[in-house]
């Protein structure tokens, strides 16, 4: 085997390893759904958009997050993870949706009967387990 043939073989092997290695690490299910917007506020409209955007809530408010998605897929999982100050989990909710192409909106909400403690909060939205964005807000 000449030096050129040997080099070609090594390059081919490296390429094959790189290609198969990458494809193996990709998620098994790929959908064409993407998150295009995340809003938080005190209320939602009938089409699940935030009616009253804010990042400053009262202790008696219900927190809403509206997640807009585009694209289609047989199944996509949206998760809203609400946390308080140093990361203490307040709530985590998941919805399975099957968007059919046009823009869709999904809302999550949390309430607390005996009032929210004052401080900083964060909601993280995950699409199929991968973070799609966060929004920070506070209760005064």
């Amino acid at each position, binding site marked *: 085997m000449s030096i050129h043939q040997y080099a070609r073989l090594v390059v081919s092997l490296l390429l094959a390893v790189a290609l198969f290695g990458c494809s193996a690490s990709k998620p098994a299910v790929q959908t064409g759904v993407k998150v295009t917007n995340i809003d938080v506020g005190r209320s939602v409209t009938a089409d699940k958009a935030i009616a009253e955007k804010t990042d400053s809530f009262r202790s008696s408010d219900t927190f809403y997050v509206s997640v807009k998605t585009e694209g289609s897929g047989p199944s996509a999982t949206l998760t809203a993870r609400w946390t308080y100050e140093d990361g203490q989990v307040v709530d985590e909710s998941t919805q399975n*949706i099957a968007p059919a192409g046009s823009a869709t909106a999904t809302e999550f909400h949390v309430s607390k009967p005996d009032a929210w403690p004052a401080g900083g909060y964060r909601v993280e939205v995950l699409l199929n387990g991968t973070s799609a964005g966060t929004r920070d807000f506070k209760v005064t």
Partner: protein
Amino acid sequence: MGIFGDLFSKKKKPRADFSNVRSGGSSTAPTPGVGGPETNATSVTTGRTYVVVSGDSLSKIAKREYGDAQKWPKIYEANRNIIKDPDLIYPGQELRIPEA
């Protein structure tokens, strides 16, 4: 005790109690395996919504939302299309909460 005594004597901030947090959600997208878009219980275009949980009553919701249990008729009137008897609401019902 010195510096270590000071470090260990500092009280940690108590963690907040979120055990009674209620959550819910809805979407305009259909759910997997179910055709067609989501159907809304009301035709109202604006307003806060609240999902009824076990143990709720209109007066309890009014007390929580408005700080006044006597304002329950406001919620009842806004949800007459889904509440037939103000003494009977059911877990999972999504009520519109009008502004106070």
